[in-house]
Structure formats: structure tokens, C-alpha cells
């Protein structure tokens, strides 16, 4: 049986997670409100998962990831996805150099620690596939050579919920590769007033680089060590299973609303994201609150709705709410 010294682990996590407060402080200098977005960016960063963002334009999505890159002192690239974008524009290509009379590798914008794939659904499937494959494999093959992507590597892809004409919606299998799907909402009135004030000031605040990419890599290892009890594992499995066979959990009414449930990758992501959340909360163990805190972000893009559900304006969020209100908490 695995023995875990929780006291020691807790102390270690207390020490290692101290930077979370610093990151939050630095982020708050630049980003007003959007606490939920910032928290999920950190979860994705610490759990080594990519994030799909959905929100209206102008909600500080790009600024948030740019600021995070500045704080971590990491390389940041932004790729604006357009219908004429090619896979080579993302991953790179071989260019013939007349000077050396040889083909040389020109690495694409994906070679960065933080990549913002803006409006990912505007590009055709082959470009999306190139990016998603790189996200999964964490390496890119150009010509005969394979190049590892830098660590940490976090892709934040955005989707615009409006203007759906001329878009290429991500297939279910590819959406599943994003650990979290975060829905970004408008700031509150007070926050928006503060945003105006900040922009009217002579100098826009800038976040300082307080971390190195290596710190994040090390923190990820600590996150993996966060203790997860069997009861929590069972709770996660119950939640994920309830999306597949709701009738077994007394949720027969959801049976006709769910076309397909969450995959085993959802269970893995839910466990990892819960650990990262516990780490952010500076705890060495996961409690049911952690699972519930990340449940919506992990599951909302992994549940397929039927036509009946769409006709009745039922969203995946409604389904998740029903599930977490029914599955017994350990």
C-alpha cells in the first residue's frame, strides 16, 4: 500500500505554491476582474493541460495569456486563425537558403511556451489538426526531423460564440484534447469602471517577470504529488459515468438529452485539474470541493447534447448541475 506523509506533503506544497499568490497579484495588476479566467489559466498551466476559451471579443483573453507569459518570463506567440492559414504557418516549414544552398528549418509560431490560437474555428480542419496534434504529442515533425516543443507548453485557443458563418467547428475528438473549456463573461460594472481608469492613465500597468519556466515545470511535478484519496477517485468516476449512463444515478430524465458522455480523458483531466486546484488553494490533498470547482470547465465540452436538448434550450451546464446535485459526495 502506498504510504503518503501528508504533513510533509502539505508543508512542501505550502512552500512550492507560494508563487501562486505572486502570479495572482501580478495578474491583478493588469487584468481587472476575470478571476475565474485567471484561476483556470493557472489550473491549465499547473495541470499541463490546454485551454479552450469561449467569449465575446474584448474580454481580455489575449491580454491574460500575454500577461501570464510575461510573469513566467516565457515566450508567447499569437496565431490568428484565418480560412487561408496553412499547417506550415503554424508548425513551420523547410525554406531553401540560396546562401547555403540547403533547405533550412523555419520553426512556426507554435514553438513558444504560451500560444494563443485566436479564433481557432476560422481555419479549416487540416490546420486545426496540425495544431491539435502538436498539442497532444508536444513535438512537431518538419521534414525529416522531429522537434520537441518547449516546456511549459500551453495553448489557449479562443472561439467566438457569435459570427458562426464561415467557421469550421472543432470536431468532438479534437475538442476533447483541451483539458478545460472556459466561458469568459463580461466584467461587472465596478470592474469596467476600473478598466476605463487604467486605460486613461498615462502608463498601462505591466506585470513583472517573477518566475522562470523551470519553476512551472517543477511545480507541475509537485501538483502530481497532491494526494487524492480513493473516495475522491470514486467521486470523479461517478460524475463522469453519470454523463454516460445517467439512469444509473437516478437521472433518467437526462438519458434522452445526452448524445454521448465524457471520455476517460475527462476523468484524467478532472483528476489533474482537481489536484491543480487544490495546489492553488495551497492544500496537499484533494477534497470534493476541488472536483466540483473544476467540473464545469472539464466536462462542458465533453458532453454531446441531443436535438431534443437543443430544442429545449438545455445546455451542458444544466446537465452538469443536475449531475453534481445528484451524485453523492463522499
Amino acid at each position, binding site marked *: 500500500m502506498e504510504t503518503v506523509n*501528508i504533513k510533509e506533503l502539505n508543508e512542501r506544497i505550502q512552500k512550492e505554491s507560494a508563487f501562486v499568490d505572486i502570479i495572482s497579484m501580478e495578474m491583478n495588476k493588469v487584468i481587472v476582474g476575470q478571476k475565474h479566467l485567471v484561476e483556470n489559466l493557472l489550473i491549465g498551466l499547473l495541470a499541463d493541460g490546454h485551454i479552450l476559451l469561449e467569449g465575446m471579443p474584448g474580454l481580455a483573453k489575449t491580454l491574460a495569456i500575454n500577461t501570464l507569459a510575461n510573469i513566467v518570463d516565457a515566450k508567447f506567440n499569437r496565431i490568428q486563425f484565418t480560412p487561408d492559414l496553412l499547417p506550415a504557418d503554424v508548425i513551420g516549414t523547410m525554406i531553401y537558403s540560396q546562401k547555403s544552398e540547403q533547405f533550412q528549418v523555419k520553426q512556426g509560431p507554435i514553438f513558444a511556451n504560451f500560444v494563443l490560437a485566436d479564433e481557432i474555428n476560422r481555419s479549416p480542419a487540416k490546420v486545426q489538426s496540425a495544431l491539435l496534434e502538436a498539442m497532444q504529442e508536444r513535438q512537431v515533425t518538419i521534414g525529416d526531423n522531429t522537434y520537441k516543443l518547449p516546456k511549459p507548453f500551453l495553448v489557449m485557443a479562443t472561439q467566438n460564440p457569435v459570427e458562426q458563418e464561415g467557421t469550421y467547428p472543432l470536431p468532438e475528438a479534437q475538442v476533447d484534447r483541451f483539458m478545460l473549456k472556459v466561458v469568459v463573461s463580461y466584467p461587472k460594472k465596478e470592474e469596467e469602471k476600473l478598466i476605463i481608469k487604467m486605460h486613461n492613465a498615462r502608463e498601462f500597468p505591466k506585470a513583472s517577470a517573477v518566475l522562470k519556466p523551470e519553476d512551472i515545470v517543477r511545480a507541475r511535478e509537485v501538483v502530481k504529488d497532491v494526494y487524492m*484519496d480513493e*473516495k475522491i477517485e470514486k467521486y470523479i468516476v461517478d460524475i463522469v459515468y453519470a454523463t454516460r449512463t445517467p439512469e444509473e444515478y437516478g437521472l433518467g430524465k437526462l438519458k434522452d438529452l445526452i448524445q454521448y458522455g465524457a471520455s476517460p480523458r475527462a476523468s484524467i483531466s478532472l483528476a489533474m485539474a482537481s489536484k491543480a486546484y487544490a495546489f492553488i488553494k495551497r492544500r*496537499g*490533498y484533494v477534497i470534493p*470541493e476541488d472536483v466540483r470547482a473544476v467540473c464545469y470547465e472539464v466536462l462542458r465540452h465533453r458532453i454531446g447534447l441531443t436535438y431534443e436538448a437543443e430544442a429545449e434550450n438545455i445546455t451542458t451546464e444544466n446537465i452538469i448541475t443536475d449531475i*453534481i446535485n445528484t451524485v453523492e459526495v*463522499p
Partner: protein
Amino acid sequence: MRHFAKIFLAVLLFCGGGILHAQEQMIPISLPQWLEVKSSSLSKDSILVGEQVVWSTVMAMPQQQEIAFLPYAAVVEAEQAPVDVVRDFRLDTLSIKNGIKELEARLLLTSFDSGYYKLPLMVALTPQGDTIYLDSPFLDVTNIQIDTANFTMHPIKGQMRYPLTFKEVLPWILLGLFVIAAAYLLYRYIKYRRENRDFFGKPVVKDPPHIIALRALDKLRSEKLWQNGKEKLFYTGITDTLREYIEARYNVSAMEKTSGEIMESLKDKSIEEKQYGELDELFKTADLVKFAKYIPQVHENEEAIPVAVRFVNSTFEQTLEEDKQKEEK
């Protein structure tokens, strides 16, 4: 009589063909002196095709005299007569008086060929070996006259409805009674369950939530779980009991809520501050034990059940208890 009939049939098979053949040759009808045919008539002289008619022959003879009739179906078949035997001879003794017995032979016949026929003769045998031919009546078989000038087609009549017998209806009656009984029992079960009564209508005494909780906590205490290193089971038992109690007492779905959410939902339930704080602390310790392998101190373990008991005792529905006591008085 039966013995005689058997002998007669054997003789018949041997010489029947000859007898029948003889009929074709217009055998003169001669009756023995001891036999007197009192009547021989059909129930109807004229029938429609397919209609049935009874041929009844009454005869008188000495009491000791035996006589046996040849099956009329065999006679009809041998003669290829245009009649069919529906029911063959039925011989009944009508009376025995002064050494004379009166017998009646009844036949049920029909015919599917129209025409005016003389029915084949009745053939009888005596134990003495005499063959007796009894005269037969005429039968007029007619068709329904169709007025072809004014004929109108009618649809085929439906199947004739024979009256149902009780034997046929009985299974359906029993099935109906069974369904009614099952429906009644189901209705009674649901009704009584709603009214919190058992199947026989007696009210089920359900313990109030605090009694159930206190009993469960007492059981946990007696199991000495933490003393045997089963702290996780001990705290799981305490929190589950408290969650069930909170669910029943405050109508909060505590089993599906986290500790933090439960405490949040209890904020507005006017619980004493001290009990609220103790419960919060107990849930936090329980979470540590359940999810973080925390091994509590002995005094924490010793205090866990008393804290839970204090919470239950200070929050159970006292007003209802008082009302019940008043009602009982």
C-alpha cells in the same frame, strides 16, 4: 342384448352385402307374425336441402323376442341413397305390458340433394337367423326457390353466434377478478404507504431523524472504530449520520453537498453559534481524515461523537415533539 348385437354384426359382415344387394331387387316387405309395426313416420315429409329430419318407427313384439337393426349408415352407403345419416339408430323400450314390449327406433337424417325419395328399407335380424325388412317413408327434399326476376344479392351472413358456456367464460371471469384484486392491492399499498401505514393499515411508527441519528452515533461509539485504527471509517460514519440527519431535519440535500456547502446552507437555520462552530470543525477534521490521511489526536476522536450528539440534541424539532406529547395526552 349387447351379446346378441355382437353376433349380429359378425353375421352382418359376412352376409350384409347379399342382403343389401337383395334390396335392390325390390324385396317384398313381409313381417313375422310376432312383430307389429305400429307407426313409421318422418318428423317432416318435406325438408329443405341440409335440413334434418327424424325418422321414428314404433314396433311391438313379445317381451322375450330379440331384434337388432343393421346400421342405417351402412345401408345408405350400400344403396348410394341421396341421404346422410346424422345420428344412427337409437333403440328405446317405450313400454312392457302383458308380455308385449314396445320399441322405438329413431334416426336423424339429412339430405343435400333435392328430389323425392323413398328412403332405403330398415333391415333387422333376429337370433333365429331371420332377416326382416321394414318399410320406409318417402322424403321430399326441396331447394329454396329463387325468384330470378326479382333476385337481389345479399351479403354473406356472419358466423352464427353460439351461446357462450360458463366453462368458456370462467377463465375470463377469474382473470378479471385477479386484475381487479391486484389493482386494489396496489392502490391500497400506495395509499397506505403515503399515509405511512403498513399493508394491513396499521400506522408505521417511524423514528424521528434525531432518534435515528443518535442511535447510529451510539452504534458507532460501541464499534470502537478509532481505537482499532479505523479512523477513516469512524469519521465517515459520523459525517454520513450527520448529513442524513441534516437532510431529514432541514430538508437540505446534504448527501450531495460538500462540507463547505452544507455549512453554508445551515447558516440561516438559526443554529447556536457554538454548535455551528463545533460542527464546522468536526466536518473539517472529518475531511482531513477522509481525504488527507490525517490521523487525529485521541482527544479529537473522543470529542467527535459528543460534538455530533450535542449538535443533534440542540437542533432536533422540539416543537413537534411537544405537539405530539400534547396530542397523546
